[in-house]
């Protein structure tokens, strides 16, 4: 049950994290579809982190959830934070030029999704997925 932490400062760091998440998912026996889901979620959340907070870190944990091997990820940054989380979670809402699918879409493809944020305090998002 390993734990790895990656710092995110530039887009090329995201590639490393995605590879590490893919490896963790594989070693937990994830199907190709579930591996794709969690790697896609990782990509979405890393991009948000770079766009809004410029930097942050991602912790990758291989745990057991409901008796099944799971991969849990924590995305933590010290960026501006989100004033209105329910608005940010709304479909089609975007504070920049995107489709506004990032957060609601990520929540939909993960079995567990938890977000904590307030202005000036940064943002912490935890996701978990299992086979």
């Amino acid at each position: 049950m390993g734990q790895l932490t990656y710092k995110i400062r530039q887009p090329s760091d995201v590639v490393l994290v995605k590879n590490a998440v893919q490896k963790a998912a594989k070693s937990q026996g994830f199907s190709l579809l579930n591996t794709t889901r969690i790697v896609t979620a990782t990509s979405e959340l890393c991009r948000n982190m770079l766009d809004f907070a410029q930097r942050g870190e991602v912790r990758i944990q291989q745990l057991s959830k409901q008796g099944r091997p799971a991969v849990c990820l924590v995305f933590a940054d010290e960026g501006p934070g989100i004033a209105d989380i329910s608005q940010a979670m709304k479909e089609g809402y975007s504070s920049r030029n995107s489709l506004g699918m990032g957060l609601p879409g990520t929540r939909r493809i993960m079995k567990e999704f938890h977000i904590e944020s307030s202005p000036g305090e940064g943002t912490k998002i935890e996701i978990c997925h299992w086979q």
Partner: protein
Amino acid sequence: MHTDRIPILKLGQYLLVTIQVDLYDELAERLESDIITMARKHDSRGILIDISAVSMVDSFMGRIFSNIASMAKLMDAETVLTGMQPAVAITLVELGLTLEGVHTALNVDDGIALLEQLVGSYDANPLEEIVEEEEEETEPAADGAIDL
């Protein structure tokens, strides 16, 4: 920092792009502008993007594909995305992405056939032929030959 580029091949009246690496943001944005520049340069009628080697498409990449299709459309070209893996398709739908304006086909063969169909039907537009005749004064005989 990165100066990598995704190669774009000219294939007759089409552009052929095969994505075989993980598309990070800069690379994707560069691809977008390269495709549009090349489509303009070669008067391309269709753009085929093969993603059979791509293991993940997130909302950013989805937006890039939609952008390419919209820009291409404004320049009178159609865009076909080929070879999407089933897991990628399922995840895209679950994310809520519809890839507006992008045609899809199972593989490159089908993609080219689809482009032939899409662009072929557009060629039948008589207005287009008049415009071409006016612009290309050097080849009136060739245009006439096609009409026969």
